[in-house]
């Protein structure tokens, strides 16, 4: 097979970048040079060729080529370098127009022969190829672009990569390419993120509902979010209010007004992504812990139990030193703050609720108990069910300004 093809392709060069692998590339019909190159270095491989288009493509950690499309003029000389900046192995095969999936499937059918063949199938549909490039390495291929205009896919055929890791070489005398947003030759995820302007446009567009049902507050997400443990729950309330309750530490962490959350990075699985708060944080809890059970009690040991939806509002359940506590948070009807309803059904002693230290712009109201020195003192009977109303002076003022 290889020998036959080799006679068709007399101008093969296998250079030290691919020791012992030259036979595998016998099917490449044009001059092909493989070099282990330092990143971003281009070498014209033939004497006497005046211009060589150099294209440098990086393999990214997210199984994408950083250059998702490029154009060359028909018949031009091209040096393509694959610089692997990811932590996985990748190759790059340029295929005949429309042949990407066939080639990907043929690579998978190599089965046990795949590893030693660099997952490059013996196929006429493969025009040029760069074998497996290890992380931190670079290899190049030089070829003459077809004289015939067309759309030539390039793809990584390492098993599993070929369905998402690809791009396209446009061979065209034209100076423009089709609108990237409608370019079906590139992965869907890449059809807008290559220009800052387009990203900006996308941000101002209305976000489509991410779920197959209407999102009517109250509703919640378990999230990673700044300012809480990684076991946080964010709840969106009516009246444009939201709060973050930390199931890791069993306490309200902060509350905000405005939009709810931008979940896009988190849902995409981006490294170290967080849900982003879309609003003004008007309250951030800063006590050691807000509830004490008994006279001069220390910070209790907390245990998270879960929550029940009461008229769709979550009522959190946790224990403090083994005593059950329930906490439900509603919006104030004037949108200026929140109403926190606590239940400690088995309270058998006095309970203290600690307000924040005096440096926040929150006004507290307590229908029951005795408030002194930023602490609310409740009798055991009062503690069985008590309410704390928190109004933000900051929000009230901000509202008047508008």
């Amino acid at each position, binding site marked *: *097979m290889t020998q*036959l093809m080799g006679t*068709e392709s007399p101008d093969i060069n296998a250079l030290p970048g691919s020791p012992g692998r030259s036979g595998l590339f016998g099917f490449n*019909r*044009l001059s092909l040079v493989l070099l282990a190159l330092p990143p971003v270095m281009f070498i014209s491989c033939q004497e006497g060729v005046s211009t060589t288009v150099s294209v440098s493509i990086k393999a990214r*950690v*997210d*199984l994408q080529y950083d250059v998702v499309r490029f154009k060359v003029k028909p*018949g031009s000389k091209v040096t393509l370098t694959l610089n*692997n900046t990811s*932590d*996985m*192995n990748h190759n790059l095969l340029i295929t*005949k127009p429309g042949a990407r999936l066939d080639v990907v*499937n*043929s690579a998978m*059918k190599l*089965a*046990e022969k*795949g*590893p030693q063949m660099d997952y490059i*199938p*013996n*196929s*006429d*549909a493969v025009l040029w190829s760069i074998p497996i490039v*290890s992380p931190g390495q670079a290899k190049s291929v030089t070829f*003459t672009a*077809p004289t015939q205009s067309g759309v030539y896919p390039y793809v990584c055929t*390492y*098993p*599993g990569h070929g*369905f998402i890791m690809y791009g396209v070489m446009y061979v065209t005398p034209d100076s423009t390419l089709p609108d990237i947003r409608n370019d079906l030759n590139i992965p869907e*995820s890449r059809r807008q993120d290559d220009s800052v302007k387009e990203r900006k446009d996308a941000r101002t567009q209305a976000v489509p509902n*991410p*779920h*197959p049902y209407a999102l009517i507050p109250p509703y919640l*997400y*378990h999230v*990673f979010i700044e300012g809480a*443990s*990684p*076991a946080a*729950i964010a709840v969106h309330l009516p009246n444009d209010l939201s709060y973050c309750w930390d*199931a*890791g530490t069993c306490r309200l962490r902060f509350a905000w007004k405005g939009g709810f959350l931008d*979940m896009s990075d988190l*849902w*995409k*699985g981006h*490294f*170290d*992504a967080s849900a982003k708060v879309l609003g003004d944080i008007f309250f951030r809890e800063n006590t050691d812990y807000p509830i004490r059970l008994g006279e001069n009690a220390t910070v209790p040991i907390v245990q*998270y*139990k*879960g*929550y*029940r*939806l009461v008229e769709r509002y*979550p009522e959190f359940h946790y224990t403090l030193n083994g005593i059950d506590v329930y906490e439900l948070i509603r919006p104030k009807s004037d949108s200026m703050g929140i109403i926190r309803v606590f239940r400690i059904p088995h309270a058998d002693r006095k309970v203290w609720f600690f307000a924040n230290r005096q440096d926040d712009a929150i006004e507290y109201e307590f229908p029951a108990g005795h408030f002194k020195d930023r602490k609310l003192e409740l009798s055991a009977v009062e503690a069985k069910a008590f309410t704390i109303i928190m109004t933000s002076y900051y929000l009230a003022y901000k509202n008047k300004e508008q």
Partner: protein
Amino acid sequence: MKSIISTRSLSLFLCFFILPFMSYAQGNVSESYRVETIEMLKGLAAQTGGIDFLPDGRLVACFVRGEVMTYNLKTKEWKLFAEGLQLPLGILAVSNSEVLAMQLSNLIRIKDTDGDDHADLYENATSDFGISGNYHEFNYGPVRDKAGNLFFALNCASSGGGVRAVVRGELNKLGRDGIDGHKEMFSVVPYRGWVMELTPDGKLHPIASGFRSPNGLGFDLEGNLFVADNQSDWVPTSSLYHVRKDHFYGHPASLVWKKEWKNRDPFNAPITELDKMRTRAAVLFPQGIMANSPSQPLVDMTNGKFGPFSGQLFVGEINRDRILRVMLEKVGGEFQGACIPFIDGHGMRIANNRLAFAPDGSLWIGQISFGGWVGGESGIQRIIFTGDTPMEVYTMSLTPKGFDLTFTEGVDTETAINPVNYNLRCYRYEYKKKDIEEGVDVATQVDVQAVPIISTNLSKDGRKVSLIMNGLKPGFIYELKLGDIKSAAGKLLGNKLICYTLNKLRT
């Protein structure tokens, strides 16, 4: 420039593409099984983290954006059961109104207590494990044994990300390699890289360590627990482990949470010490050949409704359009055995993350595209057995002098005894700390050797071929490439590549 397709290259093209495809199509898997796509609810990002069947026969599935939905197989109606979870990657039906789901922060028990088919109670079944907030600390499971104990697995964190400013659980910096830590997976909060057991008293017990990305747990019919793990910076090819209490399975990061380890640096412990401690995989999945990212093992408990493989395990593969089949046997008191593709293609998507048998015996598959590195299209499909028995290797069993291959159907003597149809080689993968310069997914076969078949012998019932060879060696994978063997009725063998993990010799 030459024309793109010359006559000769066209014939080569036919040779390389059309012919394998044709023989592939003739293998009767295509007549024995068909793949159907389930229509998902419009507007749902169908990245499927878990699937199971409720006692009343409805499917229950959870998705990356936190939805838990039910699907009525008869009316084809989707209905929202619960919402708001963070990356749930496993679900277990408890009753028609209750499920357990494994999300990033906890195992959560979700109940509908008021009978409106929508959950209103979300109980914390357990959260007694650490979260550093690293994006890669996925949690898998749960599965339940007959006594009601629940098992789930905690992924290690990835060097692709960091840890958050606030973590849950004690931070132990020894769980990350100080020298090569920027590349290796790590475990800096409790029990990352462990399989956990939640007993009915609500206590959580770390039971087995040494995992990297144990994306899938399942029991066999006898109640043995198997966990599929992704290849890593230590165990270079993906594995199926028989999980037992207090065993260690190879990735050292998790050792920092083992009392007996006494807070030593696990990454720079002598490899001989780690190798001696570890329990080897019952089955290795050669990288780039069988699977790069195996998912859930599921035992065929359909008693023939799904074909002839009752009691064997099916294992999903995330990296391509494949479900694998695993056949196990006990040799020297330990499980070992073979893996073979069960079905490739046939309209099946890639990223086959979760498996469950429906009451009618069809195999449902949940697919997930996630994070850019898990590719393909999300959704749910099912595989239906048509009733036409496939011509396949039913079991591959080690003998003192070779292997016995039993086929699902009586074989055609001429093709079955021809040694040309048995191309055997063996190789192994080295257990070691991967070189810092090597790609995380590089799996190098070492000591690759061809193994000549000395003789073949067909059993009287015409279903079993005994292969005899010299010098079988423990610690090697025996990769058998079968030729065009036919059944007595003339059906071509379907899947022809099978890999046996030989840990112990048969004496």
